[in-house]
Structures are given as structure tokens and as C-alpha cells.
């Protein structure tokens, strides 16, 4: 499979995606739904996390990827932009840097950035696809030596469903990666969390019950341990949007997300406590807005060079119908369920 961009697919245009999402339909606009529920417009609070998307280059081409990442993507953050992120961190008190991609480790400056952030005394999280540990043989040791928290994607505890979403052979390589991480202390002394997302157009299971299944099955079948499982709802963006449109599931999925709107999930949505930095330094309210080119708005700084913690910590959030993905059912965020 190639990226939407390489295939010159109409949905490789973010404007086309937004047009599809925001077109006329029975589902109300997200901002209107908040109002209807008696909730105020979404606004950020104190920044707990700087999430840095270091590029779209990836060694995998997952069918549900909201980034449209893959081996054929070339956009990666440059050293100059990384320096701007570090400068912003130096003048802020943000405690955690969450590094994502693509496969973030494929950025040539990834390891340098991690060590620089650690020098600032900040906690580092790496959103790792696990198979990259097989590509870069010394990566696991580097992450362990720097006490980087790993958030690893594993859509299911068995091979068939995992490979259907992430590609043939991914499950076995992921299991091998998890065993290496366990051997280095991950899942014990070092933080290892897994991410589940549904392999299709449906909502994730209860985080608590699924974590119980994952822990039991991964231990029983492979002797693997981990800390927490995060359930994340698939966002109708990029390749998952393509899947929805191609399979005739788009309208029903948007309606499912909207019908499952849970006001209790709203206060903890991740955009309220984070700022998302794009590979080119542009600022976004979250990684999903980033992939739709919906930059920070309402007068907030729009580039990392203009970073202003106080202004960003009281910014109003830019929303769209994709936001229903974070408020459906038990809620969804980079740290899993929110309600």
C-alpha cells in the first residue's frame, strides 16, 4: 500500500477531507453540539504536554493511519525546527514531550532531540510502532538508557486482526519487539503502555476490560508484561477516512460517533492540555487537527518560533466534526479513555 499522497488520491488534499467532514448532514457541527449540551466552547488550560510530530516518514503503511504516513513520505522535522522546540521548552514549564510521527525514530535527529530534552529535565514519551525496533537494532537500548516512556501500537493481542490493520507480519515483529523491551526493564522499571484501536468502523471496547484481556493473553501466549492499555477511537481522517468512504461506512461512522457523544468526556480531551507541533513548526491544537491542516486559531500563536505559553494556555480550540471521535463513548485521547 502507498500513501494517499503517492497515489494522488483526492483525499490527500486536506481541504477535500474537511469538505467531506463538514458537508451538509444530519450530524450537527461539533461546536453546535457542545452548545446544545450546555457546554462552553472548547478552550485550553495549562499545557502539560508538547506533542512533537517529527515527520510523516514511517516504515509501515497502516490502513487506518490518520497521518497518511509511510515509507514514501519525505516530510521530516529539521534540526532548525527541533532547536525552536527546545527554545520553547526552555522558556516554559511543560513537563512532558510526546514524540510522534510517522515512525519518529526514523527522523535523523530523533536521538539527538531526545537527549537534549532529557537534559532539560523533561519527561519524554515515544509513540513507537514496535517494528522499528527490528529496523534499528540499537534503538531499544537507546530508549531504555534515556528512560523514555514507550507508547506502543498493538491493535490486538492476536495476529490476524493486527496484521489486517498494520500489514502482514507486523504482529510477530511487534511481539519480538515487546519481548526485547521487557528484557530491558520495560513493563517493569520502565514505562511501557500499549495502544489499541479498532480494526474497523466501530468504537473501541471498554479500556478496563480490554486491558484485562490484553494482559492475560499477552502473558499467557508470549510471557509479555506492560503497564496500561490505551484505547483510542479511529479518527475519520486520511487513510481511515478513505477506508470509510470506500466501504460505504462514512455516514454511519460519523453518526455513530455523534450519537455516542458523551459530555463527560469533554473536559479531559487532550487538546485542552497540550500543544501539537508539526514537522514544519506550525502549531495545532492536536495531532488530528494537524493532519487536517487546521492550525491554531482565534489569535493564538501559529508557529513554534512564536511560542507563548501563557497565550497558548488560554487559547480557544479549533473544532470540526472529527472531534466527535474524542468524545464518543468513554472518550479518546493520546492517553486513552477520558471518561
Amino acid at each position: 500500500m502507498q500513501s494517499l499522497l503517492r497515489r494522488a488520491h483526492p483525499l490527500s488534499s486536506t481541504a477535500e477531507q474537511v469538505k467531506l467532514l463538514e458537508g451538509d448532514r444530519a450530524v450537527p457541527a461539533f461546536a453546535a453540539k457542545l452548545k446544545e449540551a450546555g457546554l462552553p466552547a472548547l478552550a485550553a488550560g495549562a499545557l502539560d504536554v508538547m506533542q512533537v510530530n517529527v515527520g510523516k516518514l514511517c516504515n509501515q503503511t497502516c490502513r487506518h493511519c490518520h497521518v497518511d504516513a509511510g515509507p514514501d513520505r519525505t516530510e521530516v522535522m529539521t534540526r532548525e525546527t527541533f532547536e525552536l522546540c527546545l527554545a520553547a521548552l526552555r522558556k516554559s514549564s511543560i513537563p512532558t514531550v510526546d514524540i510522534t510521527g510517522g515512525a519518529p525514530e526514523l527522523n535523523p535527529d530523533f536521538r539527538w532531540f531526545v537527549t537534549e530534552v532529557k537534559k532539560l529535565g523533561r519527561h519524554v514519551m515515544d509513540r513507537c510502532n514496535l517494528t522499528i525496533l527490528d529496523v534499528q537494532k540499537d534503538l531499544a537500548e537507546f530508549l531504555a538508557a534515556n528512560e523514555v516512556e514507550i507508547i506502543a501500537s498493538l491493535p490486538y493481542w492476536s495476529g490476524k486482526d493486527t496484521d489486517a490493520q498494520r500489514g502482514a507480519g507486523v504482529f510477530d515483529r511487534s511481539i519480538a519487539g515487546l519481548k526485547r523491551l521487557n528484557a530491558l526493564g520495560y513493563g517493569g522499571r520502565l514505562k511501557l503502555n500499549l495502544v489499541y484501536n479498532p480494526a474497523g468502523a466501530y468504537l473501541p471496547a471498554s479500556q478496563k476490560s480490554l486491558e484485562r484481556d490484553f494482559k492475560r493473553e499477552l502473558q499467557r501466549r508470549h510471557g509479555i508484561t506492560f503497564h496500561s492499555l490505551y484505547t483510542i477511537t479511529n479518527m475519520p481522517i486520511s487513510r481511515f477516512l478513505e477506508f470509510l468512504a470506500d466501504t460505504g461506512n462514512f455516514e454511519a461512522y460519523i453518526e455513530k460517533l455523534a450519537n455516542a457523544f458523551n459530555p463527560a468526556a469533554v473536559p479531559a480531551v487532550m487538546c485542552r492540555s497540550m500543544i501539537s507541533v508539526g514537522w514544519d513548526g506550525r502549531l495545532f491544537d492536536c495531532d488530528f487537527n494537524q493532519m487536517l491542516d487546521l492550525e491554531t486559531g482565534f489569535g493564538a500563536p501559529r508557529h513554534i518560533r512564536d511560542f507563548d505559553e501563557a497565550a497558548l494556555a488560554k487559547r480557544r480550540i479549533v473544532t470540526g466534526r472529527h472531534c466527535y471521535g474524542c468524545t464518543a463513548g468513554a472518550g479518546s485521547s493520546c492517553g486513552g479513555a477520558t471518561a
Partner: protein
Amino acid sequence: MAHDSYYHAPDLAKFPDVGKDAPELWNKFLGWYGAVFAEGALSEREKALIALAVAHSVQCPYCIDAYTTACLEKGSNLEQMTEAVHVAAAIRGGASLVHGVQMRNAAGKVKM
């Protein structure tokens, strides 16, 4: 509105209409139904698998659609769901077959 077939997928959304002329009974059903499927001695996932099997046994297309999605959303996989359907089918098949005893009893009574 009438349709060419008795079962029409969008009709599932009209299920609450059944409560219009007997709201008390409907509300009792809903309360009981919700309690039945809540986590208890069995998990919600296990209950959804039982519901899927029963849906096949009573051959309710609405229930099959609803509990296929429910099973996936509770974290079951297709292997587990297919085995659940086999359980339903095996019980149906076995239920027919066990009546062979009645046949044999009846035959034994009249046959030389």
C-alpha cells in the same frame, strides 16, 4: 411505511416506537434489558457473545447486526464470534437430533 421485505435494516432504529402505546411495559423492558447486559458475574463481552449466539438461534437479523457490532466493540474477535455461532448451531442441530430418541421410542412401540 411498508417495504418489499419483512425485514428492513433502518427499521432497527424504530425499535423504540414499540413503546409508544405501552410505555410502562417498554420502560420495564428497557430497564431489565440494560441490567441484563451490565457487567456482572459475566463480563459485558461474554454477554454480547451469548447474545450473538442466541440471535443466530432465533434468527433475528436486527439482533445479528446489533450484536456483531457489540461483540467487536466489546473486544471480541471473529474467531470467538464464529465459535459462538457454532455453539448456537450445534445446540439447534443437537436439539433436532435428540428428538431421534422420541422417534425411536415411538417406532419401538409400534414396530415388531
